[in-house]
């Protein structure tokens, strides 16, 4: 697989390590009332879809940036690559922090 890095252009997937579902960016708020349940679900449960999947890749053998890659888990086709920091910054802030 070739991952089209937003800064470096097309790079071999072998330069990257894989973490998993991009929902891992959305860490629950630690003082939330249901924090235990929320952290359990965050850490252990996955949607694991067959088809479009947003996932975190780390450019370990490159510029060490985290990417959010949108990839089809049935065909391995990659349709979108974003910097994970851009994805994280675009999230709405949790109410308690606003």
């Amino acid at each position, binding site marked *: 697989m070739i991952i089209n890095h937003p800064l470096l252009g097309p790079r071999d997937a072998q330069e990257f390590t*894989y973490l*998993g*579902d991009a929902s891992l960016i959305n860490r629950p708020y630690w003082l939330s009332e249901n924090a235990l349940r929320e952290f359990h679900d965050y850490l252990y449960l996955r949607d694991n879809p067959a088809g479009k999947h947003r996932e975190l890749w780390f450019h370990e053998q490159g510029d060490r940036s985290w990417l959010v890659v949108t*990839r089809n888990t049935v065909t*391995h086709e990659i349709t979108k690559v974003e910097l994970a920091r851009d994805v994280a910054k675009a999230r709405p802030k949790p109410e308690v922090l606003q």
Partner: protein
Amino acid sequence: MRYSALRLIKESLTGHKGWRPQWRDPAPQSAYDYVIIGGGGHGLATAYYLAKEFGGARIAVLEKGWIGGGNVGRNTTIVRSNYLLDGNEPFYEMSLKMWENLEQDLNYNAMVSQRGILNLVHTDAQRDAARRRGNAMILNGSDAEHLDTDGVRAMYPFLNFDDARFPIKGGLLHRRGGTVRHDAVAWGYARGADMRGVDIIQNCEVTGFRIEGGKCLGVETSRGFIGAKKVGVSVAGNSSRVMALAGMRLPIESHVLQAFVSEGLKPFIPGVITYGAGHFYCSQSDKGGLVFGGDIDMYNSYAQRGNLPVVEDVIESGMSLIPALGRARLLRSWGGIMDMSMDGSPYIDKTHIDGLYFNGGWCYGGFKATPAAGYCFAHLLKTDRPHDIATAYRLDRFMTGHMIDEKGQGAQPNLH
């Protein structure tokens, strides 16, 4: 029809005209007591033991394609009982004991061959870990033997013993481990279940569950609604997709694992060898092909094929262990989809929905577990209680802190 040498002689004298199909092809009835989703090794074994050992009546196995077409037909056929942790080892030991008696029980030639599994060690730390695991295996009734370098050399003189980086320092030998003809396991269980009245319904895809008031009443399928008092899901590889139909999210990711077979060679690997310095294991099939594999591809996948970098990695590992491998030509490679769980161990459990039961999360170790998983899942379906030997395989163990993490990797499924 019972198979025997006498029968074979009789058929060979009469032109083999007396053989009958090994199972029927029934149309689905409107309702069953038990519906098992998934006609793979585990699903068929579950139906078999449910009918044979637990007196279950009116049982159906639903399979979206043909039976034995998933992971039971795609694995590398190894059976073993060499785990470390208490939650696991007694279960796999029970499974290995069932393998030892499987062919007599099924009256079916599954080519169970206890040719021994050797886990090589290359460092002092690995030797310590192997001895510890060997002791844990013996404590749980399995067998383990430590070999030094000379012991390994006597068995496999062609290995690369003096590699500068990873010299072979010995190995943990598990003599009762071995290989089984994988397809015959599915067929044997299917025939045994069918003989006991189980309806094996192929080309019948489950498209949804009918759940009312927290109770599962049956399944919607491509061949209409089928009512059931109890539904057991046994669809490893696609567990997340099927359970999503019941609104559940699982502690599972699907990953692709590749396997390889070379052209047929004269016998030279009598047992199973696993490399301790890279992810590589190898055995030789009765047809002569070297059957080998290594790591999963590391990313979520439902494609039953992998990528070339992992092919290269596996074969590099193989070459560094068995230099002679370079003379063999690769015949085939393929991929299967693994339910990679969050701690590397499986689930056999009730769900929060009444009448809906789940068996999955077997990572790449589901084949060896087939008899015990079928037996324990049948026990759970029949009695609503886990079998004594499978009490640790709970779906909620991450909430309660009772993980069974053989490798100590944490909640990172692709590392288990």
